[in-house]
C-alpha cells in the first residue's frame, strides 16, 4: 500500500502542474487585455449554465471518451495512433454514406441507427487497418502513416461534399444536405439534447475494454508487445496480430465516435467533422499515462472546457478566440508530464512507472 507521504507528494505533483497551467493561461489572457476571472465565468456558464449546455458537454464527452478508450488500447501496445482523427472521419464518411443511401422507413429507425453505427465502426477499422498495414508489414512509422491518412480522408470528404454529395440547391463546400430523419440519432429531450444509447455504448465500451486489457491473454499480449516487441516475439506472442488488433479496436471506437458527430452533432457531413477530438483524445491518454480508469472523468473535464470555450467568442466583453481551450488543455498535459519527471528527480524511490504499479496490481490470473 502507499504510505501517506507518497500520497501527499502524488497529489502535490498533480496540483502543482495544474496550478501552473492555470497561472500561465491567466497571464496570457491578461496579456491580450482581458480579465481572467471573466474567462472562468464564461467557461463555466458555457458548459454548465443549464441542461442544454450540459447536453453540449455530453455531446463532446461521448466521442472524446470513445476515442480515448481506443487510444488506451493502442498505447498499451506501444503504438502512436495519431491516425485516430482520420479514423473518426472515415467512420463519419461511412455513416454518411449509409444515412443517404439506406432509405429505411421511419419505423425502422432504431435498426437503421444500429446499422449506421456498425458501418462507421467498419469505416474506422478500415482506415486503422491501412495504418496498421503500413506500420506492421511495410515499415512506415505509424505517426507519419497516420498523419498522411488523416490528410487523405479530409481531402476525400471535401471532395464528397463538393462533388457527389453536394446539396441540390446552393451546393458549396460547407456540408451535405441534412440527413433523412430516420438515420439521425434521436435526442433524449429538447432541454437535454443527448443520445442515451450512445452514452450507454460508451460505458459498455469502457467496461469491455477494461476487462479485455486487464483480464485476458489478449490484454497481456498487448502489454508485452508494448513493453518490448522483441522479447514478446521470443516469448511466442504473435506480435503482428496483437498490434493489428489494437489498431482495429481503436479504429472501430474512433469510427463510432465519428458517426456521432455526423448523425447527432451536425445532422450532416461537414469538412473536418471530427473537430480535433481524436487529437484531444491523445492528450487525455498522455495525461493519464495510459491509465484507463480515469478516462471518463478527464474526458468530461476536457469536454466541459471545450464546450465552455465556445462562449468566449460570443461574450461581448471577451471576444476571445476559442483556441484558448486548446491552449489550456495542452499546457495541462505538458506540465503534468514534465512534473512526473520532476517528481522522479526528487523522489527517485518512486521512479517506477506509475502505469507499472497500476497494472501489476491487477495482473490477470493465468
Amino acid at each position, binding site marked *: 500500500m502507499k504510505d501517506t507521504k507518497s500520497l501527499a507528494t502524488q497529489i502535490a505533483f498533480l496540483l502543482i502542474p495544474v496550478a501552473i497551467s492555470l497561472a500561465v493561461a491567466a497571464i496570457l489572457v491578461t496579456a*491580450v487585455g482581458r480579465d481572467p476571472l471573466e474567462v472562468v465565468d464564461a467557461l463555466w456558464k458555457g458548459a454548465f449554465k443549464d441542461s442544454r449546455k450540459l447536453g453540449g458537454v455530453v455531446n463532446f464527452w461521448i466521442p472524446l471518451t470513445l476515442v480515448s478508450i481506443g487510444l488506451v488500447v493502442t498505447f498499451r501496445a506501444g503504438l502512436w495512433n495519431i491516425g485516430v482523427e482520420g479514423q473518426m472521419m472515415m467512420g463519419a464518411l461511412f455513416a454518411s454514406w449509409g444515412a443517404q443511401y439506406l432509405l429505411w422507413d421511419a419505423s425502422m429507425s432504431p435498426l437503421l441507427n444500429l446499422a449506421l453505427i456498425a458501418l462507421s465502426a467498419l469505416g474506422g477499422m478500415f482506415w486503422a487497418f491501412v495504418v496498421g498495414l503500413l506500420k506492421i508489414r511495410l515499415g512506415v512509422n505509424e505517426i507519419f502513416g497516420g498523419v498522411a491518412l488523416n490528410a487523405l480522408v479530409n*481531402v476525400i470528404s471535401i*471532395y464528397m461534399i463538393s462533388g457527389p454529395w453536394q446539396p441540390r440547391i446552393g451546393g458549396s463546400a460547407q456540408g451535405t444536405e441534412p440527413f433523412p430523419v430516420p438515420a439521425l440519432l434521436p435526442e433524449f429531450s429538447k432541454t437535454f439534447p443527448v443520445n442515451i444509447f450512445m452514452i450507454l455504448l460508451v460505458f459498455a465500451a469502457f467496461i469491455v475494454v477494461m476487462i479485455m486489457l486487464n483480464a485476458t491473454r489478449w490484454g497481456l499480449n498487448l502489454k508485452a508487445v508494448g513493453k518490448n516487441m522483441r522479447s514478446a516475439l521470443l516469448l511466442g506472442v504473435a506480435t503482428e496480430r496483437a498490434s493489428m488488433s489494437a489498431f482495429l479496436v481503436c479504429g472501430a471506437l474512433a469510427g463510432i465516435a465519428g458517426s456521432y458527430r455526423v448523425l447527432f452533432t451536425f445532422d450532416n457531413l461537414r469538412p473536418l467533422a471530427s473537430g480535433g477530438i481524436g487529437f484531444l483524445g491523445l492528450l487525455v491518454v498522455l495525461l493519464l499515462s495510459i491509465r484507463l480508469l480515469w478516462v471518463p472523468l478527464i474526458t468530461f473535464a476536457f469536454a466541459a472546457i471545450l464546450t465552455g470555450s465556445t462562449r468566449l467568442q460570443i461574450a461581448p466583453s471577451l471576444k476571445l*478566440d476559442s483556441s484558448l481551450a*486548446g491552449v489550456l488543455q*495542452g499546457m495541462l*498535459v505538458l506540465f503534468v*508530464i514534465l512534473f512526473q*519527471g520532476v517528481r522522479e528527480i526528487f523522489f527517485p524511490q518512486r521512479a517506477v512507472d506509475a502505469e507499472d504499479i497500476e497494472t501489476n496490481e491487477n495482473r490477470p490470473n493465468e
Partner: protein
Amino acid sequence: MNEEFLNTLGSIIGTATPLVIASLGETITERAGVVNLSLDGSLALAAVLGFAAAWTAQEAGVLDVPMQIALGIVVAMLVGALIALLIGFSSIKLRRDQVAVGFVLTLLAADLARFLGADFTRIPGPQITRFALPVLSDLPILGPIFFQQNVLVYFSYILMFVIWFWLFRTKGGLSLRAIGERPEAAYARGAKVQQLRYWYTFLGGALVGLAGVAYSLNVKPGWSSPPAMQGDGWIALAIVIFGGWHPFRVVLGAWLFAALRAVSSNIQTNGLFIFGQEINFPFVLLNTLPWLLMILTLLIVSGGFTERLLQYMPRAVQHRMRAFLRSDPPKALGTRFEME
C-alpha cells in the same frame, strides 16, 4: 529554354525554402539523437510571433524595414529554439518521452498561435523582398531558377553546404554523428553528449523558427487561421526521413514536394491540357498528392518492401541501389542517454 518554365522552377525553389530550412534544422537535431516532433506547431507559432514583432515595429515606426524584418526573424528563431529546448530538457533532464512531449507541443503551439494571432489575422505587414544576386542572376538557366530570389533562399543554399561540411568534413560533425549513433562510445571518447544534444536541439529549433517566419514574411505573407503552412511541419519531418538525414538529399526532397504542390495547384487553377485536349476530373483530389507521395517515399526508404524488391536485382547493383534507396535513422534517435 522557355522563360515561363524557368520562372516556374524559380518560384518552386522560392516556395520550397521554408520546407528546406525546417527540414535541415530537424536534420541536425535528429542527427544528435533528439526528435523534435513539434514542427507543425512550432512553424505556426514562430510564423505568427515573428510576423507580430515585425508588424508592431512597423506600426511603431521605430525601425526601418530591414530591421523590422530582422526583428521578426530573431523573435521567430527564439520561439522555435525555446520549444526545441523544452523537448531537449524534458528528455535529457526529466527523462520524458521525446515523442510524447513533442506531440503535446505540436498541438499546444498550434493553439497558442491561433490564440495569440487572433488580432493579427489578415493584415498586411512587412515582407522580405526579392534581391537578385549580381552576376550570378545573369547566368543562363541557373540564374532565373536559383539566383533571382530573396535572402532566405540564398541562406538556405549556404546552410545546406555548411551542414554537409560540418557533418562529414569536421571533427565537430563527427561527434555530432556519434552522439546520435552511439552516444556511449562518443561519451567514452570524451564527447559531452548531453551538452551537445542541447546545443544541436537549440540550433535546429532556431532554424525551424526561421522557417516559420519565412512563411509569414515571404511565402504566405501575413497570418490567417487555419495557418497557411498547416501540415507542412509533418511534411518536413517526413522529408528528413526521405532524405536519409543527409543535407543534400533532404533539400532535394523539399524541392520535390514543392514541385509536386506547384503542379497540382497550377492544374487546379488553370485546368489540365494534354495535347490541347482538356482533361476533366475532380481537381480537389489533387490535394491528396503530397500525402500520397509522403507515404510512398517512406515506403521506399524505410520499408522491408524495398529490401524484397532488391532481392530481384542482379547482385552487382544491389549494394548500390540499397545505398541509394534506403535510409536508416541515427541509431540512438529518440532514446535517452544516461551517464553512469
